[in-house]
């Protein structure tokens, strides 16, 4: 670009930077606070910490029991992501490419769950799980979350399979591939971008899920990170460095995934996935 063209872009950059700063400043302040001492915090939110102290992280991790919450969140999230993506691939394949008697009823039935808030589900679900002695277990957190994710996953994967090249499917059939083989050997490798998007979305929703985990778990050691953080804040709300460290432990893994797979996050959420 010429110099003049660059100069004409300056107002655009100023505008973008302004909007970006409004978003980033509270987050930067929070990150700084996590490394500060109690007395440093009140000097100024945007003053960088004098030194990198990890005391607050250590306290949150051990005294605040974030080590347990972290383990619970990892177990629940990984189980939900693997199961939901696998099951949605199957349902999406069926709705997209296989003869399914009753599709006109079954498909909308499945998509209904995508619009429904957890509030509409969680009360009977609690009594149902309680009756089976499953509250305070990973099952109570994993199974409903799979149900909800499969609903969106079906929509997502069906639209991928509908647009998949039909010649490939037909050629596979001619070569004597069974349906199952055609799915996993030919179509699934092609679906990589769609599957990765689904992976990051389900990861994010499950990692951040709050209401279900709040209701299903009474035992402190079974809490997930967001619920753990909410109770933690109730107890230590005056200790800013400790709160900030806790919040960063919750946000850390999702930030890491976001940095690595930013493109897939944005594509998925621009496609109409609602923030949970």
């Amino acid at each position: 670009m010429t110099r003049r063209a660059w100069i004409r872009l300056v107002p655009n950059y100023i505008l973008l930077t302004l909007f970006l700063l409004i978003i980033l400043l509270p987050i930067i302040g929070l990150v700084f606070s996590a490394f500060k001492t109690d007395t440093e915090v009140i000097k100024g939110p945007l003053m960088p910490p004098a030194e990198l102290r990890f005391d607050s992280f250590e306290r949150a991790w051990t005294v605040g029991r974030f080590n347990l919450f972290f383990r619970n969140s990892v177990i629940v999230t990984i189980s939900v992501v693997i199961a939901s993506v696998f099951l949605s691939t199957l349902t999406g394949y069926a709705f997209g490419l296989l003869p399914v008697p009753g599709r006109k009823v079954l498909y909308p039935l499945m998509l209904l769950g995508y619009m429904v808030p957890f509030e509409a589900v969680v009360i009977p679900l609690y009594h149902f799980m309680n009756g089976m002695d499953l509250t305070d277990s990973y099952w109570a957190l994993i199974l409903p979350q799979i149900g909800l994710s499969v609903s969106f996953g079906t929509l997502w994967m069906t639209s991928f399979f509908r647009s998949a090249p039909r010649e490939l499917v037909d050629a596979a059939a001619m070569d004597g591939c069974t349906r199952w083989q055609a799915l996993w050997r030919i179509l699934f490798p092609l679906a990589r971008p769609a599957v990765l998007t689904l992976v990051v979305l389900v990861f994010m929703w499950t990692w951040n899920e709050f209401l279900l985990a709040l209701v299903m778990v009474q035992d402190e050691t079974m809490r997930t990170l967001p619920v753990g953080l909410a109770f933690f804040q109730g107890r230590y709300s005056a200790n800013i460095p400790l709160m900030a460290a806790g919040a960063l432990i919750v946000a850390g893994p999702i930030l890491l995934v976001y940095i690595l797979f930013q493109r897939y996050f944005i594509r998925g959420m621009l496609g109409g996935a609602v923030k949970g």
Partner: protein
Amino acid sequence: MNDPLRQPGESRFHGWLYLLPGMAIYLVFIFYPILETIRTSFYKWDGFSNNRTFIGLENYASLLVDGQFLKALLNNVTFIIFYSIIPILLGLVLASLLGRKPLPGLTFFRAGLFLPQILSMVVVGVTWRWVFNPTFGPLNMGLRAVGLDALAKSWLGDFTWALPAVGSVGTWVQYGFCMVLFLAGMQRIPNDYYEAAELDGASEFRQLLHITLPSLRPELGVALITTIITALRVFDLVYVTTRGGPGDSTLVTGFLVYRAAFQQNRIGYATAVATIMTLVIFIISLVVLRFQSTEEQT
């Protein structure tokens, strides 16, 4: 779409095998509970005794007279202004100002603007509780630093200010999303449209009204659905920042459901609120989808 030909020796119902596991989990853990929620809303039940009595529409009648539900619903509607209308307007302004020119480094800005979307709302709530903290929060510290001590207040504990304070957190979460969405949509609009308009002497504003807005219709639909649904579903943020207080000044329907069901054992009442909430979300989604598909045909 035509059904593909059946393979030799294959049952008509072969596709069902693929549906079975995913659909079973969905039906048991999501769909059946929805039906139960609706059914329970016609009963009076405390949640643990066997004493469940059918009372018809009484729960719904008490919703309409007790004030709490209407207050919560009104707050949700107010949140639509903060979660949906302001972010969409900001997004449109930004997109129309810089949409068509190529902008090196836009990916970086896009990633940053999108950031609040991926964070847990509990983390967002913790962050903003700190910002709004009356004694050592950055907002009040900043106001005092520039001599505006009179404006410093206990934002989340104030009957007048708590709702706009929590609402503006929603604006903070959503506006970057709307900007990214509309900027992506602008890439699709052919430059010729604007060149032709400029030749005809159409002002920037007329170009926005007659070219940009109609072309962004699909993006507007997505933005409306997602932000309105988010505004109607608000729970985590209110739980973490205000618990619906002070008084009921930031009470929302999602929190009312939680409070009635799990703190007050009024299961019938809670399920009635949840049923209405679901119905409203449902109708709004269908209306926006409908609006979009009819617009696309014209």
